[in-house]
């Protein structure tokens, strides 16, 4: 197990290096005149040149990257070129916000998808068709539209939630719920559509297995067979999809945070990338890559716990 974890960590480090190198290169190639963007159209060409020199943008690409890398290895991700905020502090404060959305969406996705998937697989007939239609609709409707629709109905029309902004849980749990509920629902819908379909398929397959017939013939209640045996066997594929959804939700948060003006990673990702704020974008790339590696490792371990065959392989 330890060797397995070490191997995964090592491959994660290699991945981190490759991703950061590629990201830096892409930012450099597509960055344009960052100093001009920082200073605006009123600045003189001389001031712009001075700003570029101050930021070290006039140095060769390799020198700039090595400079960033050596600082990053010591934990110093630098400061945002546009706001002056320390990148590590900025990401840390926003990561908690996005994580609360993504975790909330993951929990709701898992709960609702399992309920819908199992229901469809067990009942079949119209229930099955209904769940499949819901899945297709969930996939087809863009998250952005869902977010806007939710805001219009529940925040503006009914006034039940805040249309924009975010309140920390520690500051006000009720305020936190008011600000995260709609974004979490908006984020969950696509995930539910994907995972419910996967759960349904896996449960249908599992229900056809011989061991189910055996358990039923021994007189075990159907519910016990489904929730204790079938779901555990069907859980593997569903968990894999949920893991992909979890990472994907960070991507979905980009749009949702923009619509709800939530100060999370997604919002800062859009702003910093369009501005060419290289230190901040690189910090986000590193944070995201680490998160993906960690999540995949956790999922691998969970898969092993669910299915001993995976553990052996």
């Amino acid at each position, binding site marked *: 197990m330890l060797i397995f974890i070490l191997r995964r960590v090592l491959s994660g480090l290699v991945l981190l290096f490759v991703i950061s190198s590629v990201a830096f290169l892409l930012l450099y190639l597509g*960055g344009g005149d960052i100093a001009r963007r920082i200073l605006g159209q009123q600045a003189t060409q001389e001031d712009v040149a001075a700003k570029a020199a101050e930021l070290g943008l006039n140095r060769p690409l390799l020198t700039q990257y090595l400079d960033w890398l050596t600082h990053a290895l010591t934990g110093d991700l630098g400061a945002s070129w546009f706001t002056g905020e320390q990148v590590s502090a900025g990401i840390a404060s926003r990561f908690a916000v996005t994580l609360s959305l993504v975790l909330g969406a993951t929990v709701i996705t898992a709960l609702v998808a399992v309920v819908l998937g199992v229901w469809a697989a067990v009942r079949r007939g119209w229930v099955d068709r209904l769940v499949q239609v819901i899945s297709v609709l969930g996939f087809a409707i863009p998250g952005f539209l869902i977010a806007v629709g939710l805001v219009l109905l529940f925040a503006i029309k009914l006034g039940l939630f805040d249309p*924009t*902004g975010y309140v920390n849980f520690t500051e006000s749990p009720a305020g936190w719920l008011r600000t995260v509920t709609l974004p979490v629902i908006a984020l969950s819908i696509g995930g539910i559509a994907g995972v419910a379909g996967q759960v349904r398929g896996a449960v249908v397959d599992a229900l056809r297995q011989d061991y189910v017939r055996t358990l039923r013939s021994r007189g075990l209640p159907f519910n016990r067979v489904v929730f204790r045996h079938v779901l555990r066997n069907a859980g593997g594929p569903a968990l894999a999809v949920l893991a992909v959804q979890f990472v994907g939700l960070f991507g979905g948060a980009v749009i949702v945070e923009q619509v709800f003006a939530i100060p999370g990673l997604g919002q800062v990702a859009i702003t910093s990338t369009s501005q060419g704020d290289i230190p901040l974008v690189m910090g986000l790339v590193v944070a995201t890559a680490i998160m993906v590696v960690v999540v995949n490792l956790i999922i691998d371990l969970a898969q092993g716990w669910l299915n001993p065959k995976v553990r052996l392989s």
Partner: protein
Amino acid sequence: MLHRKSLAAVAAATALVLAAAGCGGGGKTTTGGSSGGTSGGGTLTLGLIVPATTFSAQDMNFANESPYGQAVYDTLLKADPQGKLGPSLAKEWTYDAAKTTLKMTLRDDVTFTDGQKFNADAAAKNLIRFRDGHSPNKSFLGALKDAKAVDDTHLELTLKESDPGLLIHLSQNAGMMESPGAFNSPDIKTKPVGSGPYVLETAGTVVGTTYTFSKNPKYWDPSSVHYDKLVLKVLQDPTAMLNAIKGKQLNGAKLSTNDTLDQVKGAGYALHAFELDWTGLLLLDRGGKLNPALKDVRVRQAINYAFDAQGLLKAVGKGHGTPTAQIFPTSSAAYDQALDGHYGYDATKAKQLLSDAGFPNGFELAMPRAAAVGTTLWTLIAQQLKDVGITVKYTDAGNNFISDVLAPKYPATWLQLQQDPDWPLINFELTPDAVFNPFHTNDPKVTELVKKVHDAKTDDEAAPALKELNTYVVEQAWFAPWYRIESNYATDAKTDVQPQVGNAYPYLWNFVPKG
């Protein structure tokens, strides 16, 4: 069936969570838990379209970022909504006859939030730091030779040459005063130390998104502070801004688009319209370096006649603006209403002028294009010029648009430029070294008129020269303006404000609770 009950239990639990969220809903709490209330002493929550680039006074931006600086810093002078200057940290000021020495008498009752007293030495240091800093407006103090404290309350500024715009700039970011004790603070970009009406609360602030301020309890001018708390929310996405307005989360909001005006009005907000920018073409290569055709004034005039400003205002500006042919704002002494219609849309006349200039078959004009602006604008420009025989050859400049224009890599370009007060505008677009005169066009007549404006002892004395300068520039077709763009600021039913002449955002102290 047991499994049905299990499913129902899960569904009920989910509903409970959502209901709990709904139970707490209905409040208009904004980020950080601040109240959106507007009565005197309450909270003022404003929507901005840009975050603060920095809080370091030395490097401060202005325009759309002005509320950040005005919250925490005082300026030496203060302008009223019409732009008339009045005292602030400086109680009195006088120029010498040559207008190269400015003497200011400063207040003696001002203390920075770190406890340090404000005095002439602090003021002098701040001015020199701004001149030598990295603000995009550092040229505002370009004429400053030196700033010295005569004593604690007397400041003397010596200039390399007189600068008619200096006093205005001292009421903006160039005149913002930061505590000298914070000059070398490593956190100065995010933790300002000033003497202004508010203090930034770092605990309630998420840099780039929400900035929370509390009232400075020791502020020297409490009558100008109308709220106990100030929240500046950055809403760069127009949809988010609109949702915040519809949800009554903002007392005031800068609108980045006129597409949503009806919805904003429908939400019960009052609109304050003002014209700040002009849009159109900049015919930069007046010497014909990259495109010889542009050297001929008739060609530049033909380009002016080629554009249907009224049609462009309707198609591009959705009717929000005023057609014009001049770059000076209506608030300027240079402004002449008659010049707004100096060039009407006349394709026949344009073709005739091109023919007279030796281009009966037109010519090719290289211009930059940026995808961020969409496609309609570029198509319309190309179509209108094509109609008179000019073929536009676009190059996608992407993120380098401004840099390439100023390099200069193109003889002409489309742009939207701010209508600054007279002297800053002249130095931004007309003088040989102006930022937006990248080919350094040096017309003796323009230079002569600019000198007259510069040497004028009073505004009244400068007015005729300004008018003549404006007329000359229009006649010489240095630009091909289409229209002045209407911008809008929205306030809720409990808040009132007056837009600031020449600035993108109303000044902070002009926000007042209604009634």
